[in-house]
């Protein structure tokens, strides 16, 4: 990747993400089902297997090839010993950032209290997470087949470019997790305004393959507070939906009730599929969200 000059936006995103990730300790994602994965990685499983770290000496028995015998140890006694290594494996982390038009919303684009678009915040979080995972030796990729999980620093640029390139003309989008390898961890960053049925299908399908992960809802504070009054015509970001009201202020309570209901629904789906779920506002610093993501991935279920 280094010979190909990455475009400016991707570099900027990576720079910002590295700044965010610098504050976190190296992220070690808890790998649950070590035995079933064959990929080597940094996660010691406290038993003998393929790996780099020393685990134990054991008496050689039939079937052990002579080249596995540790001669230095065997010389100190009468029998032959074999040097076992601790089994290690790397975890796969797959990211999905909602590319839909609805994510390109910012409640305050200019001014003193300008907030970034939801998409920008989501990309930043995704890449920050990727950086810390890559530092820990994990393999990171996107859910799409375009960027399968790979370890190493070079993967970072690929990820950044793929994230920047991924946009959609649709108003709302649901994740497609069919290409995710079994036992991988998935991080889904979205506003979850799309029909939850799609999400439910994707998550349950993934759960069947042993995939787990986290869902983070990225919202603008305006979407939470609904600070509108008067006669207003609301249109979706891509213009597909249109809604007119004579007194927007009246709708506030009912909108927030619906939002809470939606959040509830997503949380239930996540629970069933074994995913963790939380919300993040673009008005808040990205650090808190990253901490939560880190915690949720490292600590297993929440």
């Amino acid at each position, binding site marked *: 990747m280094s010979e190909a000059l990455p475009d400016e936006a991707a570099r900027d995103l990576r720079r910002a993400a590295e700044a965010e990730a610098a504050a976190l300790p190296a992220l070690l994602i808890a790998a649950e089902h070590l035995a079933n994965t064959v990929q080597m990685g940094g996660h010691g499983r406290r038993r003998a297997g393929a790996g780099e770290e020393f685990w134990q000496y054991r008496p050689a028995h039939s079937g052990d090839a002579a080249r596995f015998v540790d001669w230095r140890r065997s010389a100190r006694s009468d029998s032959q010993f074999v040097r076992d290594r601790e089994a290690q494996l790397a975890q796969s982390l797959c990211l999905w950032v909602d590319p839909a038009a609805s*994510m390109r919303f910012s409640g305050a684009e200019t001014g003193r209290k300008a907030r970034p678009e939801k998409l920008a915040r989501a990309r930043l979080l995704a890449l920050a997470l990727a950086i810390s995972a890559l530092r820990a030796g994990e393999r990171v990729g996107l859910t799409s087949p375009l960027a399968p999980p790979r370890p190493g620093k070079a993967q970072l640029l690929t990820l950044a470019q793929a994230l920047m390139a991924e946009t959609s003309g649709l108003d709302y989008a649901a994740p497609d997790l069919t290409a995710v390898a079994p036992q991988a961890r998935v991080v889904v960053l979205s506003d979850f305004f799309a029909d939850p049925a799609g999400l439910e299908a994707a998550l349950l399908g993934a759960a069947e393959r042993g995939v787990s992960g986290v869902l983070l809802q990225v919202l603008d504070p305006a979407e939470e507070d609904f600070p509108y*009054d008067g006669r207003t*015509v609301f249109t*979706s970001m891509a213009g597909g939906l249109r809604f007119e009201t004579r*007194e927007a202020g009246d709708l506030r309570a009912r909108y927030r009730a619906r939002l809470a209901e939606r959040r509830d629904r997503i949380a239930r789906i996540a629970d069933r599929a074994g995913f963790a779920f939380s919300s993040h506002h673009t008005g808040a610093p990205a650090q808190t969200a990253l901490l939560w993501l880190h915690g949720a991935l490292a600590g297993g279920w929440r």
Partner: protein
Amino acid sequence: MTMLGPLGFTAPWLLLGLVALPLLWWLLRATPPAPIRRRFPGVALLLGLADEMVQAERTPWWLLALRMLVLAAAILGFAGPILHPEPVVPGRGPLLIVEDGSWASAADWPRRIERLTRALTEASAAGRPVALISLADPPPAAPPFTEAADLIDTLPGVQPKPWEPSIDLDPAKLLPAGRYDTLWLSDGLDRASRAPLVKAVQAHGTLKVWQPAVPVLALGSASVDGTKLKLPLSASAPVSRTFEIAALGADPSGLERELARQPVTLKDAAQAEAIFDLPPELRNRITRFEIAGLRSAGAVSLTDDAQKRRKVALISASSAREGLELLAPTHYLHQALAPSADLVEATLADALPVKPDVIILADVGEVAERTELQDWVEKGGMLIRFAGPRLAAVDTSADPLLPVRLRQGGRSIGGTMSWGEPRKLAPFAETSPFAGLTVPDEVTVREQVLAEPDPDLGARTIAALADGTPLVTRKTMGQGAVVLFHVTANAEWSNLPLSGLFPQMLERLSVSARPAAPTAEDLAGQTFTPLKRLDGFGLLIATEAEAGVKGEDLAEGPPGPDLPPGLYGTEDQVLALNTLPRGRQLAPALWPAGVAIEGEAAPKQMPLAGFALAAALVALLLDILATLALSGRLRGPRAAAVIALAVALMPSPPQAETMSEARAIEAASNVVFAYVPTGDGAIDQVSMAGLRGLSQTLTRRTTVEPSEPMQLDLETDDLALFTLIYWPVTETSPTPSPAAYVKLNRYLRGGGMILFDTRDADLAGMGAATETGRRLQALAAPLDIPPLEPLPRDHVLTRSFYLLQTMPGRYDGPIWVEAAPADAEQAEGMPFRNLNDGVTPVVIGGNDWASAWAVDDVGQPMFPIGRGQAGERQREIADRFGVNLVMHVLTGNYKSDQVHVPALLERLGQ
């Protein structure tokens, strides 16, 4: 113009637009306010929600009404409404404008000028030629008709005169020939010359009169009645109102101020009298009376000697023998003076402390308190001595309190033992103060004291006998004078005290007060020079070398161009000629029937278009706010801005008149510097930063550790709490109020210091060549500032902490401090003079010290000074000057006292 009651419209057809208002109602109602379009991802959640309120579907009625109001006000405004419009009938042909121009016009002069301007503008627009005549200042010949526009330019030169138009105006000479209309701006007073002029004017064309509805008021001359001053107030028509008469005069410090005020109530009357009963000290100070709030020469009444009561000390050597009152030396003096003067009859030692104006010694030979009396005369007293047997008996050659040396013994002319006849008086010389008085034939002198021949004798003689021997001699001493009557004050030596001439002579010598109304005879033969002149508005103007006026004219003539009202004086007396001649009865002017009189009583025409349009604009603004509020756009910062604007537009409550306690404690608890705000925010910031920098320098280098500097509020702060006041002067520096000046003066007297800084590198050299220089002069004029001099090399400021030669700031110009006393001497063995007294209350310069001292928040200098290292050196010297200045304020002349150190050391050594 169309009239609707008192309203007129210049463009009435526009009002038809009002018919369209209902249409607008219908249109506006049909259109609800436009919606805002918003992009909002959460719209997915909104789908299916229904509106509960339907308020915004149609424009609310009150908003509709507001918008209709906007439109209606705009239509009305453009239709040009005028309240009480003056019917304009365009005239034709030439126009003659006659202005009385007397003192009675002065009270409402601006309105007259306004009316004149209007008339001229109208005439100019109509192309009518105009001529203007001021009757009080009549042109020598009939004025020609000229362009009205040209006359407008000359209007500022037209001023009311402090007299009335002359009685014998000749209409034929005054009025131009031909047909023309006339506009007469009358002052409202009737006078004899008016009727013929009206007739003459009407012969030329129509006459229109403009005359104010309020009666004319005037003050007469004050007269004395015992201890009271009576002041007649007359009006041209009966009125019912209370007027206040103010008596003005010099206070003990010589400034003119109001000494007394007396309300006078007219109850449907045209005449009233204000009676002032004041102590003599106060009454003698009064120089004029005024009707408060009226600007006119007629509302001013000047006073002169006639209103003053002098304090006269009568002293005779011997107490009269009992029962021989008529022989007492002072009897006739007493009779002559008692009505018009306050008499003090005591011994000389008792009389001197009460400070009499005049001391009369009747036949006193030896004066015991000679030096005291001489001092008193030299300070302006008038000593009048009368001869007698005692004076004749003593040797007076060494007596300085006599105008001439006297021959001992005197002479007897017409006694039983002499051959001669009693002598008569010679007529008085032109130069004598008695000039013009008639000498009665029956006055004779039988005995007198004789003057030694002397070169000065002729000049000192102011009255003589027929044979030329001096009868009255006078000598000036310092500011006063000594007068000697060579006869006795009683009838022993002559019958002069019995004659009517005697009180007249005393009066001419200003011993007794003149009668309030002097007759021609009283003033005959004297020439009065104008001292001060009244202008039409009642202001006293100094005169410059004007020709003298004969006393007879002054007594008789009403004021006129040749005899302007004012103060006239001779060497000995002052006479006031008031605007209102004695006996003038004010009466309202009457005009023949058929003359159109345009008065001030009619309400003024008032164009309302501005108000209507302003109302439309205000309603429009309200509409904007209401629309914003309705459509939900008036939120957050917008609402805050609207509220802030509304709060800003509210009248702010009056500020506290005194310094707040917290501020006073802060200022009093430590050394605090203050600066006077200039009204220019940038300069004030620099002043603040400069004083802060100076405070930091002082804290670092000396034991003076000042607190944070303060911005001074001259009106409320107690200045005594501030150590040093820095006063930057700009072209636009605001002038403090008189009360603030009182405080500033108290501050300066109490040892405070003000550092004036013109910040212009002293380009003007403290002159008025620059704007700031002029401003500084104007600002500092009311301050008690002692004489100043450029900082001498040995001033204590140069060594109060650091040794300095220059006092630079950003510039390095000279500075000015209080001048050293003239008798300052160089101390022995020291390079500087002995200047121990007085901290200079002001330091004046233009070096922009604050900029040199100014530091920013991190203690870095705010402004560059000079170039490179030399500039930094200059900043250092500037800092040192600041330290020296503060040390000078705080320690006074402590360092100057060092001149005594050698002497002290020497004494200690012994």
